């Protein structure tokens, strides 16, 4: 059979693809809007690849100095790095360049938003339980890599904000006990602001190494999802051993493709109509120049918050620093958060569910009040520190003095999570007793009566 007469037969006779194709077309997707959050991340990644390819054709990763000339008078004739100069050209002279750059940047922000929302759905519904622990661990790794990839990406441009961000990254690398000094000078090809190899290294990490790893892990994540099939919320006819929903073909495929274009449309509209990271306004970076109100992209806000919140402790012996201060906010704090996320399936099994069984029916948050309480506490902890990261802008616009916010936040990071745990756990228990759905008015999800997983918590509550 020749390919143009019957392509399906052509491929099938050579690869035996019809069987898998038939299965794929019948693959069942459970229906709930929150299952689209992971796809949103996937499609943001698609947009990142498409726009990033365009940008890579124009960007020149070099720290060599050049005199820039172009249609922005305050920088016309300025001495800048080739990297920054090409970012200016991309933004100001390349046709469609600014649209692509802005869409790329918005897509990077949305990529991490989508992963975060997806993660929240997964943890609060217990979707990380057996048999999905590995799928979950790959997902957490993807979150970490997405944050790193975003940071490396906006650091490439060698504008004022990226340079200040790199200084902080460098200090955090330096703060690692024992190896910090060697590691920092190794990565930066010398002391900050780095040798001539540094920006090319960032570039190769940003356009090849990290995207390749991310793409591979996305593939692995999806393969693992398909192996176990999607988890599903409880509902009529839904059991642990089946999956109820829309088959891939035709309805789901069309809707999902529509979702891809919806994500792309929002990102392109933002890219064209809402300005992001106007590097010509920030100006070039020099180590002796700083600006007030410099901030990282949102997904690093929790780290700037931690760095600012930390009292000025440093471990020292015999007048020598052993553990520099950025280690606490820049390494220990994210270490705790990601450590907690990686350990969550084990923690959940040992402390909250006490079972080894497979779970394909999702919990509602109330089904495991103690798990939900602990998750809420962790969330409040991180979100609080995240918001403290913008305390300077809050001072500027709302006149709440920075120092007051500092002391308030230092107290709240201990009090608020404890309070969140107590309140959320009580709320879950109350909801279970009333069996009311907090979103029933807008979400017509049907749910069976509570199952018996959390009898322990209920007894403890009564005791």
């Amino acid at each position: 059979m020749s390919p143009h007469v019957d392509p399906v037969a052509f491929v099938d006779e050579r690869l035996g693809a019809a069987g898998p194709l038939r299965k794929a077309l019948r693959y069942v997707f459970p229906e709930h809007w929150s299952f689209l959050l992971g796809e949103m991340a996937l499609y943001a990644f698609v947009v990142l690849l498409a726009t990033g390819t365009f940008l890579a054709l124009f960007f020149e990763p070099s720290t060599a100095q050049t005199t820039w000339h172009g249609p922005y008078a305050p920088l016309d004739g300025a001495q800048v790095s080739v990297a920054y100069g090409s970012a200016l050209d991309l933004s100001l002279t390349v046709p469609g360049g600014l649209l692509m750059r802005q869409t790329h940047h918005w897509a990077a922000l949305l990529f991490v938003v989508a992963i975060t929302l997806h993660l929240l759905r997964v943890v609060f519904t217990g979707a990380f339980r057996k048999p999905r622990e590995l799928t979950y661990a790959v997902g957490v790794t993807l979150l970490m890599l997405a944050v790193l990839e975003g940071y490396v990406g906006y650091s490439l441009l060698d504008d004022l904000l990226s340079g200040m961000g790199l200084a902080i990254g460098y200090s955090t690398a330096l703060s690692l006990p024992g190896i910090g000094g060697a590691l920092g000078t190794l990565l930066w090809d010398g002391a900050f602001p780095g040798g001539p190899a540094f920006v090319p290294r960032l570039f190769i990490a940003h356009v090849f190494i990290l995207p390749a790893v991310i793409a591979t892990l996305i593939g692995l994540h999806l393969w693992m999802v398909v192996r176990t099939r999607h988890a599903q919320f409880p509902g009529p006819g839904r059991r642990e051993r089946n999956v109820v929903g829309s088959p891939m073909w035709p309805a789901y495929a069309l809707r999902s493709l529509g979702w891809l274009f919806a994500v792309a449309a929002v990102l392109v509209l933002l890219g064209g109509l809402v300005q992001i990271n106007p590097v010509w306004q920030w100006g070039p970076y020099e180590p002796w120049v700083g600006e007030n109100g410099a901030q990282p992209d949102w997904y690093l806000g929790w780290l700037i918050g931690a760095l600012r919140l930390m009292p000025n402790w440093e471990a020292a012996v015999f007048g020598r620093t052993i553990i520099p201060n950025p280690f606490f906010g820049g390494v220990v704090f994210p270490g705790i958060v990601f450590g907690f996320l990686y350990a969550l399936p084990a923690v959940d099994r040992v402390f909250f569910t006490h079972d080894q069984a497979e779970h394909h029916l999702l919990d509602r948050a109330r089904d495991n009040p103690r798990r939900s309480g602990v998750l809420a506490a962790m969330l409040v902890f991180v979100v609080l520190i995240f918001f403290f990261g913008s305390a300077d802008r809050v001072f500027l616009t709302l006149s709440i003095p920075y120092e007051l916010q500092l002391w308030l936040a230092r107290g709240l990071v201990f009090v608020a999570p404890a309070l969140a745990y107590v309140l959320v756990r009580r709320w879950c228990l109350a909801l279970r007793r009333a069996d009311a759905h907090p979103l029933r008015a807008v979400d017509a999800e049907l749910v069976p009566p509570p199952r018996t997983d959390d009898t322990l918590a209920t007894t403890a509550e009564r005791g």
Partner: protein
Amino acid sequence: MTRRRALALAVCAAVVCGWPAPSRAQSPQRHVGAGRTSGPALYDDGCVSCHGPDARGVPGRAPSLRGVGAAALDFYLATGRMPLADATIEPPRSQPPVYGAAQRHALIAYLTQLQPGGDPIPAVRPQLGDLARGRRLFADSCSGCHQIVAKGGVDPVIVAPALDEVTPLEIGEAIRVGPYLMPRFDERRLDAHDVDSIARYITEVAQHPPDRGGWGIGNVGPIPEGLVVWLLAGGVLIVVARIIGRRATG
């Protein structure tokens, strides 16, 4: 419930970004000096309670005004920061100023003749400045407090105001005087051409940033960008997701 929450979030977002113009503190002493044009009379009416008789200052309350120069006097009066009802706060810029031009001239003339000295009111001509040099000087000497596009900043105790509405003259006076906690820069540190260049950068670029990429969302960088991606992009897409993800049948 969710709609109200979204509205509240949107309001918070707008406030944090500083989109609505910050409300001006209205001086409670608007009536002071109404109709008067004599320097000593104006001084006795609006200034003497803090700055003391003969402008010698009151220890711990307000500085002496003798020999401070016309630039400082004009800056505080013309930006509406003086006279001040509550001597403990740093007031924001407030327009129109309490005293009209004639009254300001009378006050300045009275105080400068008490004891000469200080900087005269500078002549600032931004059109003579060099935009590139102005940007570079602003980045080196001003952006640490006022932010690189002059949208304002803070240190742990005080706000460095946004320069969205300041005039070239106010810029020149502030550079020479160093009001409140601002450092001061004299002729030898920044000459007249430098001041012209900085004033040109502020009035031409920072006050009207060329937002080639669309809506400028405040020109302060990642915080409004984060709000837009969470609230606007996230909000729209969750609505779309709920349309796509709803139960198709049954």
